[in-house]
């Protein structure tokens, strides 16, 4: 499809030299590619309507949005909501909770699949390896509601397995889900339980891509299994780790509504209420559109900025980049 090489100068020169052939060329391009443009119509409409219109709709963060007036006629209030929520006690709590949970996830849930992949890779028995992989992938396919249900059942003070064990060794049952101190550990543990196996796939693929000659060379140099793991496997998957770490940084304010909402209750709001759960409760359920959109917009902008910054830092320091 050579007709598409549209360097500016050649085409303008051609145009000047022979306007008639230029017209024909352009007509034939459109004729040939019209089907492609037609195919693109639904997809483009989708992105405009469900991605870009809501983006423009975010202007209600600067309005005293009134559902009957719509955003064309609602009153503009400038940065009122932003000023209000920066001063708002709830906002600090929301931001802190979101960051705290995100940070804990980064600390514990992020390395878990890496370690799992490394351990799986060291397992020499292939049948056993396949069995273990099959089992650890399963939770990924359960919804957060089901995982939450499992959590409720296991942790219930009356019927829960964990509390049976606690009682059996002579302690009082713990009301795990009613206790703020347990909320974050439960969130992190359940995240690891659900996604550790699935997330290990990418690292397994990265390990499979390491050249076997590196292992041989290190063995000749006298490295045992542990040394090989440390000096060949880990550096070998470092690029994959960096890329996924970058992605995580960009999502630092996106903790996962579905998971948090399943476990959250009024008793644990103090430690578990995040920006998204608050936006759902106050925004959708109570109709506080302007305020919660301002908070949501803040979240999106911070996430976007973090991703861009992390990407640049990583490109400069490690050479790995996302965009």
């Amino acid at each position, binding site marked *: *499809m050579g007709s*598409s090489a549209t360097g500016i100068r050649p085409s303008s020169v051609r145009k000047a030299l022979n306007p008639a052939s230029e017209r024909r060329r352009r007509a034939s*391009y459109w004729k040939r*590619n019209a089907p*492609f443009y037609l*195919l*693109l119509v*639904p*997809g*483009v409409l*989708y*992105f405009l309507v*469900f*991605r870009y*219109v*809501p*983006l423009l*709709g*975010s202007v*209600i*963060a600067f309005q005293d949005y009134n559902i009957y007036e719509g955003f064309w006629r609602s009153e503009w209030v400038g940065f009122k909501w932003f000023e209000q929520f920066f001063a708002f006690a709830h906002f600090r709590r929301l931001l802190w909770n979101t960051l705290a949970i995100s940070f804990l996830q980064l600390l514990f849930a992020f390395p878990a699949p890496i370690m*799992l992949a490394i*351990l799986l890779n*060291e397992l020499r*028995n292939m049948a056993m390896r396949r*069995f273990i992989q099959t*089992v*650890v992938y*399963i*939770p990924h396919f359960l919804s*957060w*509601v*089901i995982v*939450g*249900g*499992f959590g*409720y*059942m*296991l942790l*219930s003070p*009356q*019927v829960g*397995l964990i509390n*049976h064990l606690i009682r059996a060794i002579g302690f009082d049952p713990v009301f795990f*889900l009613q206790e703020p101190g347990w909320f974050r550990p439960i969130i992190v543990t359940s995240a690891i*339980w659900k996604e550790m196996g699935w997330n290990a*796939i990418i690292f397994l693929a990265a390990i499979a891509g390491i050249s076997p000659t590196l292992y041989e060379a290190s063995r000749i140099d006298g490295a045992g*299994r*542990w040394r090989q793991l440390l000096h060949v496997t880990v550096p070998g998957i470092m690029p994959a780790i960096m890329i996924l770490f970058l992605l995580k940084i*960009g999502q630092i304010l996106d903790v996962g509504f*579905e998971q948090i*909402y399943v476990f959250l209750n009024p008793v644990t709001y103090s430690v578990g209420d995040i920006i998204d759960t608050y*936006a759902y409760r106050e*925004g*959708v359920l109570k109709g506080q559109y302007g305020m*919660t959109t301002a908070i949501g917009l803040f979240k*999106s902008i911070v*996430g*976007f900025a973090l991703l861009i910054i992390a990407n640049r830092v990583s490109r400069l320091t490690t050479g790995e980049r996302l*965009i």
Partner: protein
Amino acid sequence: MSYRPSFAERTFDTVNLFLLLAACATVLLPFLFILASSLSEPGAIIRGEVTFWPRGFTLEYYRTALNNEMFWRAFGVTLFIVGAGTALNMGMTVITAYPLSKQGLRGKHVLLMMIVFTIIFHAPMIPLYLVVKSFGLLNTVWSMIVPLALNAFYLLICLTFFRGLPEELFEAARVDGMSEYAILWKIALPLSKPIVMTLSLFYAVDHWNNYFVALLYINDYELRPLQLYLFNLIAQFNMNETLSNAIEANTMLSPQGLQMATILVATVPILLVYPFIQKHFVKGALIGSLKE
């Protein structure tokens, strides 16, 4: 080369296997506990006698769970969302990715930038809610399908796959006078079976597991999908756990037993298809992880 593992290596292997089996146990034991509980008598559940083996076998919970009309209604809604949603998803993904995979299509780069931008920058929840509302989609099954018609990330995966197809084949068909639509339908798609399978499965599981959209857009009890039905069931029983136990301890049913049975019944479909789809999922995850 005859190779004798050293003591250190054998220790390493043993510890490794032990750790991995422990990981498997943490996945399997909760299932076992919940299965055992869902088959045990209420008294045994509440007294905490059930561990991994049912105490006082009963199928009453399953009978009640399966006789619930609301359960089947929610199940039907979910089946519709998974079926119609996935079909729409795949149609949209293919027809959008295909042209974008063509070299030299003008405006392609702008469109790609637009799509990638939506992956890294999300609009807040409320404006999207208002858009869905303004289309009159609230409280309809379409609210759980149409706003999710395309996933930008899956679109890029599909696009990368299409780029790898041999252009000569399409050129030959063009010379033979085939229309571009026929080429897509009769040549590109049959060659793309692996990616179509994989992405359909991704989309289907996403639909099956999603309760967030239903939570946002659905008020009508009749239109609740399965996950939202389960969510309400679990939340409702746990809110007054103590109270309900006092009332129902003497009857044939304990609310927890019913919850556990319902959860398991709702898990069965995914566990049944899991062995068949596993290899596709792994393949898909790998395709998805490839950098362009």
